[in-house]
């Protein structure tokens, strides 16, 4: 069996061109390190954070607006100081990062799921289905994603009038991001599906009598899914920005369940009273993670593009 002779997965990764290109680009390694660090921070936030910012029992108003530890008036318990309600900013950032990454990640995955499904259908079936899906994509592409996300957010909230924003915030954001970013996946998948569907193996599968859904999912999909990884990475940065922007604008996550955008919007209110740290640290975290994810995405796009090798 060929599989037995093949080297293990780890060895194959270490031996690949992509890994070589990764090793040779210092800035990408730094970016990957930062992204990894932030993911770990987000994943283990409950253990890494000294406080739980969601637990009102550990938050005291008397601790409000304490500057960072190294400044005059700083408190050794709070590295980056506290916000207006006395929450430890470092803990709030870790938890906020967690929310931002969850919303951004799920949003991008939803966008990919919608885009891949519609792209496969458009490319494989063609005809009317194709032209309807692609016209919708064209129309949507003329509008900025943030505008579409805002509209969807408003509409979904109107539909769930009974429930409060706190319960629906995360699903609404994920849906908004998913419906705003699907077009790119659909276009990519449609293009490669149209190429694949005329190849012999698809004709063979059809001759054997497999149904269209089985051919699409089991045979065409694995051959067209490659570029999706790159779009996913590049879109993750955009999705994090979109979530932060929506939360900043006050239509995303509420102050009781803050993401990085919510923390920035809270900090923005205290900018003029000299409490610079409330906005600076969440803002810097957001900027760094987006920059790192974007660098990683750009590199991945070039590294996986055989034309540039």
């Amino acid at each position, binding site marked *: 069996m060929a599989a037995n002779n093949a080297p293990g997965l780890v060895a194959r990764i270490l031996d690949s061109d992509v890994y070589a290109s990764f090793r040779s680009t210092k800035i990408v390694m730094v970016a990957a390190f930062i992204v990894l660090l932030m993911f770990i921070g987000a994943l283990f936030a409950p253990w890494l954070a000294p406080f739980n910012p969601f637990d009102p029992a550990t938050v005291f108003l008397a601790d409000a607006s304490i500057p960072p530890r190294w400044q005059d008036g700083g408190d050794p318990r709070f590295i980056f100081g506290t916000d207006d309600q006395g929450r430890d900013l470092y803990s709030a950032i870790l938890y906020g990062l967690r929310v931002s990454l969850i919303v951004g990640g799920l949003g991008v995955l939803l966008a990919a799921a919608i885009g891949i499904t519609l792209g496969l259908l458009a490319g494989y079936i063609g005809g009317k289905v194709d032209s309807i899906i692609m016209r919708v994509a064209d129309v949507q592409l003329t509008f*900025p994603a*943030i*505008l579409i996300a805002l509209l969807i957010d408003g509409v979904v909230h109107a539909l769930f*009038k009974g429930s409060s924003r706190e319960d629906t915030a995360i699903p609404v954001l994920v849906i908004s991001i998913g419906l705003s970013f699907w077009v790119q996946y659909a276009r990519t998948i449609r293009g490669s599906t149209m190429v694949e569907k005329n190849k012999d193996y698809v004709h063979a599968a059809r001759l054997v009598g497999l149904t269209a859904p089985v051919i699409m999912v089991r045979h065409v999909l694995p051959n067209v899914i490659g570029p999706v990884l790159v779009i996913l990475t590049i879109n993750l940065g955009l999705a994090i920005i979109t979530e932060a922007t929506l939360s*900043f604008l006050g239509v995303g996550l509420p102050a009781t369940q803050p993401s990085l955008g919510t923390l920035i919007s809270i900090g*923005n209110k205290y*900018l003029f009273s000299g409490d*610079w740290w409330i906005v600076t640290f969440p*803002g810097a975290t957001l900027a760094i993670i987006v920059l790192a994810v974007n660098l990683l995405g750009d590199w991945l796009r070039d590294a996986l593009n055989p034309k540039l090798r």
Partner: protein
Amino acid sequence: MLAFVIRRVLQSVAVMLAVAMIAFVMFRFVGDPINQMVGVDTPQEEVARLRASLGLNDPAPVQFGRFIWNALHFEFGTSYQFRLPVTQLLAERAPATLELAFTAAGFALLVGVIMGVYCALRRDSVLAQVFQAVSLVGVSLPTFLIGILLIYLFAVILGWLPSNGRGDVVALGGWWTTGFLTKSGLRALILPAITLGLFQMTLIMRLVRSEMMEVMRTDYIKFAKARGLTTRAIHFGHALKNTLIPVITIAGLQLGSIIAFAIITETVFNWPGMGLLFLKAVQNVDIPIMAAYLMLIGLLFVMINLLVDLAYGFVDPRLRVAMRA
């Protein structure tokens, strides 16, 4: 050529109808148009009578037709929050947004072209590297963070510029208000315009840089050098002129995005424009304003795209042939 124009116009109308359809569905089915006319204690018969008199029991296509007819007459119903006609609310705020957007576009174009030309001509200088780094940051940072950064720097620390509102405005002709004529109005415009224009500025800078570097390698530039023209005449009379055609196209296409992105900038700077109105509508689920704003932005994008396409058709003979084929 005529066939191309007609087909392109028809396409735009179709897109506009699709946008109107979405707006109609939002207006009619997500929100309830009689929402703001009845109170909790309005009797059921009264509600039913109101429904019938407004034609809300008619078939959906008839209602859609009426919605389009009203939209053509700038009738978008009444805002739930303000209990005022949506058209009036939007018209009051349009000058603020348009002045901000055009200032931002002008800033982006002017500074972007200058920086781009500099980066192309002095590719290895330190300043060019700085410009490149700035452009990377401008693309990566979210707009609202840039706004906060500028406010912190210029309004809080240095105290040079205001960070809130439009300053004093002057009414012109009863329907337009301008901040261009007062000192406080102009000062208030600086930070929002930079925030809004920064992304487009970096885009234009990168475009000008790469286009200009390409043009500088062409034969007619070599020929101009051989003719002994001054460097200045070559750079600005020949190279820049040929660079600017794609740049102006992109800048035109970006104008729509600038107006749409004004939502964020207007929120950061509390600028009393249409974007802020739209955002308040989203926060308070004020469907008529959302529907009207969607139609407005849709019209804007469709018109800009149409004009650019038609202009291309007139300017570029190759495109005309391709269209006919």
